[in-house]
């Protein structure tokens, strides 16, 4: 019996048991209005964006510049099923892109897609503050990013699919946590060579005083059945998003590209949060190395600093980060879709500022100065991108 099947059987048994426990708990619960147990939330982002991509030239052989306006709308409902379990469903604009909910406007006012972005249960197996153990299943928010700024490996819009077991415990000054992932990247009905992703993540947080917090940790990403499998490109254009490729399967007269590498990257991360003269300051870093890369382009790193937090009205945040991601360091189809246009094989700077004008209303400005195709100096080109955002949330 394969590990995947054993893990799957355990997971399904868990879900069935949870259903039985759920019914028992429901019977004992006092009747309440269903609205007491339901939370609706969402956001709308209106973005102006301009991209200067030196790898593309216009008809006058000048750098191609694209201006566009985009929207991203998300709407989610989360229901408290009982004291220990929540279930949620969320929709998002965008097409089938796993790492972006953006929808460019201006196509003769056509109606836009609104797709399933999340569908999950969140089962609290143990909760005695500060010790918690949770099982989250379905299409869900990403639990593996150390902070929302630590986006070397994942785009913040990616919603992984499968089961994630999350645990945390500690005291006032030190706490530990771990996240274990059993994720299905690509299920193939024609054979059993499903592309799976097993993740093990552990971290320790030190809080020696209210002004200082330090989090350090490591993550192991174990992909299965990647090398030799056709690349996963939501647009169906055989794009490997920067990763090295080899010849894949044939679809009619088309020969598909397949990944040339296996991917078992190990990530190490650290985040230091401070309050300096009352101002929140965060310094963070990440490094990743793929030990099964088929090329020497197997590493990546990111570091950054931010000042302030744009969360409460009249608060601001400004920040800077630098990232470099070699060709086969991580799977390119899941990385940040804005930085050097997405994927791997790039490096560059990001500066940003956000201001929370009022409750649930924020403006932001971001500028990327990147280089893409850094694995081949003769093909390296500049890629600059500016984004101005208006964000409304509820």
């Amino acid at each position, binding site marked *: 019996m394969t590990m995947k099947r054993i893990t799957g059987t355990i997971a399904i048994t868990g879900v069935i048991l949870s259903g039985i426990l759920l019914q028992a708990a429901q019977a004992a619960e006092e009747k309440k209005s269903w609205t007491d147990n339901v939370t609706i939330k969402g956001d709308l982002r209106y973005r102006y964006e301009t991209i200067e991509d030196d790898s593309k030239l216009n008809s006058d052989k000048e750098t191609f510049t694209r201006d566009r306006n985009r929207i991203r709308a998300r709407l989610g409902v989360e229901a408290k099923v009982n004291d220990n379990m929540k279930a949620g469903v969320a929709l998002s604009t965008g097409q089938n892109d796993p790492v972006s909910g953006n929808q460019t406007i201006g196509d003769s006012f056509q109606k836009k897609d609104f797709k399933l972005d999340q569908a999950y249960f969140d089962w609290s197996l143990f909760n005695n*503050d500060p010790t918690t153990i949770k099982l989250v299943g379905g299409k869900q928010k990403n639990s593996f990013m150390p902070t929302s700024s630590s986006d070397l490996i994942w785009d913040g819009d990616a919603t992984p699919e499968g089961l994630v077991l999350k645990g945390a415990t500690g005291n006032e000054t030190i706490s530990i946590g771990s996240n274990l992932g059993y994720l299905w990247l690509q299920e193939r009905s024609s054979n059993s060579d499903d592309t799976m992703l097993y993740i093990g993540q552990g971290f320790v947080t030190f809080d020696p005083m209210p002004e200082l917090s330090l989090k350090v940790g490591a993550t192991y990403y174990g992909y299965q059945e990647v090398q030799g499998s056709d690349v996963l490109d939501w647009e169906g254009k055989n794009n490997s998003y920067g990763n090295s490729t080899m010849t894949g399967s044939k679809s009619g007269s088309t020969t598909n590209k397949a990944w040339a590498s296996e991917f078992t990257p190990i990530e190490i991360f650290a985040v230091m949060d401070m309050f300096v003269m009352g101002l929140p300051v965060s310094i963070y870093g990440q490094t990743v190395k793929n030990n099964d890369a088929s090329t020497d382009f197997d590493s990546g790193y990111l570091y950054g600093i931010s000042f302030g937090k744009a969360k*409460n009205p009249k608060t601001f945040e400004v920040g800077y980060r630098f990232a470099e991601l070699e060709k086969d360091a991580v799977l390119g189809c899941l990385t940040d879709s804005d930085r050097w246009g997405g994927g791997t094989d790039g490096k560059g700077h990001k500066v940003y500022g956000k201001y929370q*004008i009022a409750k649930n209303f924020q403006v932001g*400005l971001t500028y990327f100065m990147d280089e893409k195709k850094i694995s081949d100096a003769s093909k390296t080109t500049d890629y600059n991108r500016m984004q101005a955002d208006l964000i409304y949330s509820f």
Partner: protein
Amino acid sequence: MRKTIRNSTIVAVTGLLMAFNATADDKIVMDGSTTVGPIAKSFAEYYMKANPNVNITVSESGSGNGAKSIINGTCDIGNMSRPMKSSEKKSAKDSGVMPIEHIIAMDGIAVIVHPSNPAKGLTVAQLRDIYNGKIKSWKELGGPDSKIVVISRDTNSGTYETFETMVMNKEKMASGVEYVGSNGAIRQRVLSTENAIGYVGLAFLEGVKSLEVNNVMPSEDTVRNKTYPISRPLYMYTKGRPKEGTHLFNFINLYNTTEGKKIIADTGFVPMN
């Protein structure tokens, strides 16, 4: 050129929108625990009398909302009858708020019944069994053959959470338990219901009968020396460390002054040593 103008305009407008304001020092907003409420109101009255230019408002919406108000930045002081949970501290830091804890007094949670009730005392185990529904009648405790009317604070209250932690020992309250929104409301409900039992902070004992718990009566001494089994600290949380010399700094340190200790004792709580 057109694009440059358009981009510059967007940057300029965004930059203008990023201007921010400072907070005024002559206004202090407090929100949170109904238990801490009487101390907060008495402190506010005293401080505003001494500093007529300062305006202090006190809302009593429960400890959970005190924490939320600190996290959301809508108050200067969050009053709480329980410590902030680790999840609340994390939310605060994620919002750029550094919550600073100030223990201002001690409180005992008194178990109260109607003055006509002959009961003298209960053990913590008996109390738990009343609230989880195993004991339903006063007869099971040596009293009259009448059903116990069980009153609790609402689940957003710090008093509830303290009672749940110190008495319920992870057992659930029975479905028939009646939840009310303040210490005062519990007191009123017990005063008007002969067979009722409830629990309140030490400052809410007027007119009702307080029971011994594990043979110890709640009092200033038994709370301070921790022999009374259901006692707890009371908290005020600020967003960061108040700057010395500000009204917020002077106000939050009132509990440590002779006058502050007198106010705490006068409102029925136990001042810190």
